[in-house]
Every structure is written in structure tokens, then in C-alpha cells.
């Protein structure tokens, strides 16, 4: 049985303001290219509110899973440019929950340091293959 809704038949307290915040963030993204991150972990959600917010935003065309220091579930909502991110730690516990209003969340793009490390690994692989071929 779900916990009682403290707002009875009226709208819940947090969902509507956050949807408004998302809308204004979309304005900024379209007008100025400015990205926004909303940290949901610091808001006083009542029982069922986070699920309602998640349901209102829905699931859009892109879903991604990131495996880095625990899993992350990242998806674009039905509103393009509005992304829902759940970060879990290595114990599988929720470590952070965010709404990002951006074209692509930064964490999905390949990072300079990782690209450089990958190039070094690839270079080493090629060098070893060449050495093997010469033997």
C-alpha cells in the first residue's frame, strides 16, 4: 500500500514548480544555449512525488547506461533536451538524481583524459602486434 498523499485531491507540492523550472530552463537553452542542472536530491519530496515527476516527464527516444564507479541510468524524457539521470554507487545505492536541461549531458560525451588514455592503450596494442609480426 502506498503512503498517503498529504495533499489529498490537490496537486502535489513539488511536481508543478519543478516542471515550471524545467520549462524556464528550456527557454534559456533555446535562447542562450545555457544548460541547467536540477539536483533532485536536495528537495523535500513527499511519498510518491518523485515517481509522479518521473511519470510526468516520461521516457523519450534515448536511453543510456553508464558503468563507471557504479551504474548510471540516463534517458532523455519525452521533452527533447530534458534528461533524467540516476547515478548509483558501487554498492548499487542511489548516489545522485538530477534533471539536466541540455543537448547532451556532459557525462555522456567522451572525456579528454579518457580519450588520451585510450589512445595510449591502442598505441601499445599496435606496437605489440608489430613486434609479434617481426618475430
Amino acid at each position, binding site marked *: 500500500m502506498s503512503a498517503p498523499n*498529504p495533499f489529498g485531491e490537490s496537486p502535489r507540492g513539488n511536481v508543478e514548480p519543478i516542471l515550471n523550472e524545467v520549462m524556464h530552463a528550456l527557454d534559456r537553452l533555446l535562447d542562450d544555449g545555457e544548460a541547467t542542472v536540477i539536483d533532485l536530491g536536495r528537495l523535500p519530496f*513527499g511519498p510518491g512525488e518523485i515517481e509522479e515527476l518521473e511519470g510526468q516527464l516520461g521516457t523519450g527516444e534515448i536511453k543510456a547506461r553508464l558503468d*563507471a564507479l557504479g551504474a548510471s541510468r540516463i534517458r532523455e524524457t519525452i521533452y527533447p533536451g530534458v534528461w533524467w539521470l540516476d547515478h548509483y554507487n558501487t554498492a548499487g545505492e542511489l548516489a545522485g538524481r538530477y534533471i539536466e536541461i541540455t543537448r547532451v549531458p556532459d557525462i555522456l560525451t567522451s572525456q579528454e583524459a579518457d580519450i588520451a588514455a585510450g589512445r595510449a592503450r591502442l598505441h601499445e596494442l599496435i606496437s605489440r602486434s608489430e613486434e609479434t609480426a617481426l618475430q
Partner: protein
Amino acid sequence: MKQKPTLGEVLQAKGVSRRGFLKYCAATASLLALPPAMVPRIAQALEAARRPSVIWLSFQECTGCTESLTRSSSPTLEGLIFDSISLDYHHTLQAASGEAAEAARHAAMEENRGNYLVLVDGSIPLGNPGFSTIAGISNVDMLTETVADAAAVVAIGSCAAFGGIPGANPNPTGAVSVSDLVTDKPVVNVPGCPPIPTVITAVLTQFLTFGQLPDLDHYGRPRAFYGQTIHDRCYRRPFYEQGRFAETFDDEGARKGWCLYKLGCKGPITYNACATVKWNQGTSFPIESGHPCLGCSEPDFWDDGGFYRPVSTARIGGGAAFGTAVAAGAAIGVAAAAMSRRRQQKTIKEG
């Protein structure tokens, strides 16, 4: 002294990708109640941060604070211990005991003179040194010796911060708080019975990230977590404003999730982050589970007139009629909320 590796070096050695590191930094920003825009600065600071040495002293306590920390979710305890801090002494968690344990404490103090953190849970008995000893050393002697060269002290839990339950009337052991004894070092109070685990880790992470302690309120508590009352952030607050209260634990009001003020909720006078950070990996907090806030992060909460009496009656010794108490309680609640708002505004201005 061998220099400790930076956190960036530790993570790199473990094969943690930049994405993983950024994720860690995002969680850290959230933990410290900092805006997400701070993530790049946190990443820069954490990469260069070296693991601080931490000495944890447990005095007159129930181990509930350690239990709380070991259930901390972000960062995980193992992450905290092995990546972020060097926990050099904790007589409950460490394998060494007796002389070997005390030698580890002395070695950590010597190697990290002036730079280590001392965490304390439990109050310190002054009535008789023999009331509580570790390895034959009285609590007050161990505290005095250990903090002498510390960078700062963190009092974990209401016992260390305010004397807590051991200090409750009639205080048979003469229990005092850490800040009663340590007056020449920065002392951060992280009260609660126990404190929220993420708040404990946040204080350590703040020190690790920025090399400084967080902004504190007049009780020495980090403002980021103790800047607002439970009542301010309670999702049941609308019912309080509407005058809809649960009268008993099994009436219609209780079932509908109405305000628990009449059942003794101390939310209006209790500064803590339970309503937002929550417990058990963010599952809920006492009020969400149908129980009033006990006010455990405030001084002398144990002697504050009764857990199940409204704030008004509890504060005047329970002599008032219940009906009068509710009316007075609502007034006090509104006044407390107004005071809290004024305090927040002051905090914002000062900040």
C-alpha cells in the same frame, strides 16, 4: 614522511575513468549542498587532494554513530576509507587492539602533526576518570593528548556535541561535550542520535575537497545541513497550516498523513536535514514513517519535557491542558517558523 597520494592518483591507479570521477564529483556537490555548477571546481580540487589522516575516538557512546557511518551511501564507506581518508585509528573498526592500536594512534599523530582530523563520538565523563577508559587511559586524557596537534575536531553525534544521553539529568558521570573541553581548535558539531550518515561524510568531504571546514551556526553545526528546521522542509507542513493534526497514532489523521504536531513532533524547533537528505539511502525519515521528530539534534533533547507532548506543553513542564496546548502550539509553531525564516534570511545575507 612519505607523501600520501592524491585522490586523483588513487583513482587513476584503480582504473577509474574520467566519467566515473565526474560522477563522484557530482555526488560530492550534491552531498555538500553545492550547486551542480561547482562540479568542475570540485573535480579540480579533489584531483589534487591528499588523503587526510583521521583519528576516531569513541567515548561514552552506544556505537550508533559508527553504525550510522558504516551505512553511509555516497560515497560508500569503503570508498571513504580507502580513497578519501586514511582512517588510522578507530578502536571498533580496526583490527589492532591494545598497545598496537595505541601505537597506531601515536604514529598517525606524529606523521601528520598539525594536519590530521580527530573525530569523536560520545561524551567525556569528568565525574571520575575511571567511568570510561580505553587502554587504561581516561577519555579526557586521550582527548587532550590527541587533539593537541590536530587540524580540527569533529564531534559526531549529540553525545559528543552536547553531552547527549550520558549528560541527561541527573548526569551521573559528569558528562561534557567535546567543545566544553576543546577550546583552542576548530570544533564542528554534527549532532543527531545518530547523525545522518551523509552529513558525517559531507563534513569530511568538505575538508578533503577545499581544505577547510564548513560554515557553522551558533551551535557549531554545518549550516548546509542544520540551517533549516525539519518543519520548514516537512512535506506534511501544509496540514499544519490547515490545522489538520493526527490526534493519536491510529486515528484518521494519522492514516491520512496529517501533521504530527499534537503527537509531540519537535520538527518546529529542530534544525536538521532529515526531511531532505532522509535516511536509509534516501528512503524516508521518521515523520514520513508516521512518527514525530524527537528533536535529537538539539541540545538536551532527552530532558526537553517528553517525546510525545506537543512542543508547547513539553516546554512548560506538561502542566497545560491539552486543548490549550494545541492552540498555543500552533502559535509557537508559526512563531518558530517565522524565527527560522528570519534566521535563514540572516544566514543568506551573511553568506
